[in-house]
């Protein structure tokens, strides 16, 4: 079953509103990328550091890493 849509009015483009114009600035860069690998190395370093941080706090909490002045009881 195919449906055919009927346009009620002819218009030149989507409806513009004050809020829409403000929000358009936030949705105007679709598909924009940095060339090549960009900041990939930076994020890789950040991910590695975060993983080390999480391992440290886990092992402190697990008492696998013992620090002076921190007791887990």
């Amino acid at each position, binding site marked *: 079953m195919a449906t*055919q849509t009927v346009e009620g009015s002819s218009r030149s483009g989507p409806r513009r509103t004050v809020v829409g114009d403000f929000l358009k600035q936030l949705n105007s860069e679709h598909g924009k*990328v940095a060339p090549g690998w960009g900041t990939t190395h930076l994020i890789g370093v950040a991910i590695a550091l975060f993983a080390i941080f999480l391992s440290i706090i886990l092992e402190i909490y697990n008492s696998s890493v013992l620090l002076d002045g921190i007791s887990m009881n």
Partner: protein
Amino acid sequence: MGLPWYRVHTVVLNDLGRLLSVHIMHTALVAGWAGSMALYELAVFDPSDPVLNPMWRQGMFVIPFMTCLGITNSWGSWSVAGAHIVFSGLCFLAAIWHWRTGKPSLDLPKIFGIHLFLLGVACFGFGAFHVTGLYDMEGFDPFVPGGIASHHIAAGTLGILAGLFHLSVRPPQRLYKGLRMGNIETVLSSSIVAVFFAAFVVAGTIYAGLAKNQSLSEARAGSMDNKDGIAVGWLGHPIFRDKDGRELFILSVTVEFYGGEFNGVSYSDPATVKKYARHAQLGENFELDRATLKSDGVFRSSPRGWFTFGHASFALLFFFGHIWHGARTLFRDVFFDIDPDLDAQVEFGAFQKLRDPTTRRQVV
């Protein structure tokens, strides 16, 4: 003609307004459940005896979580329940508002940056309010290093900084293509990761009793065979006799109660003594009201048991879901077999433009 039942949700895949709408509707259902469950539990909860009739014996599920978060009195609970119902209603209306069609393109990396920044602010605020006491609860020490408030302040700070980073730097082209950042299904796949990860963590911590000072002995896994061993034979009825051939408990053993309702009472008739000896072997004796709830003696699992089982099951399912949607995202050219014009045939609603009767569909 139409879609098979297991593909019907694809009608919102390429229609981001409606995709958003169905997600908001889901949120409305979730919040509505929370509020309704809280209302029901508050209506049937009996707080008069927290020692012998605690909330977990009454099957309360959300009330313990509210208590954990600082809601300890009646007005707080009713307010939380009402707030969830109101929020659910607002989400319902928002879902209807967003039920509009069209094919906008969304700047997903920008959306990610905005959301991460806002969540960072909210997370930080949550932690800061607990430290300052603006939104406080008794007995909550915010200066514990692994504690809730300090975690949220740290994580919130990280979220704000990371959000600002993602708002100011565009993704590299290699990663944009590799992770399919233009396709909304990549967002779905990575979101599923967060859900199943959280479900596994939470099932494990509740199971092991780490979350809120629970006792480990309440949650040991395994069958009754793990407790007693595997029965391989029946030893027969034991009859205890003394050296003169008289059966034990007949003349010389009495039972006397210390503390509790039977304090000071003693029995010497053998049938009663034997009965309380048997009961004592199984554990402490209680007087039980079996009439009010028509208790049937059938074993039931505790809320904690159901929580662990449910979350572990859903975590496993969501793990499979992540693999599925991740594969669909990465291998879209292999999976894609749905005619992109099909949605013109299965559009819902009487008018193509919301509330505009001049755009009524004509069946050709």
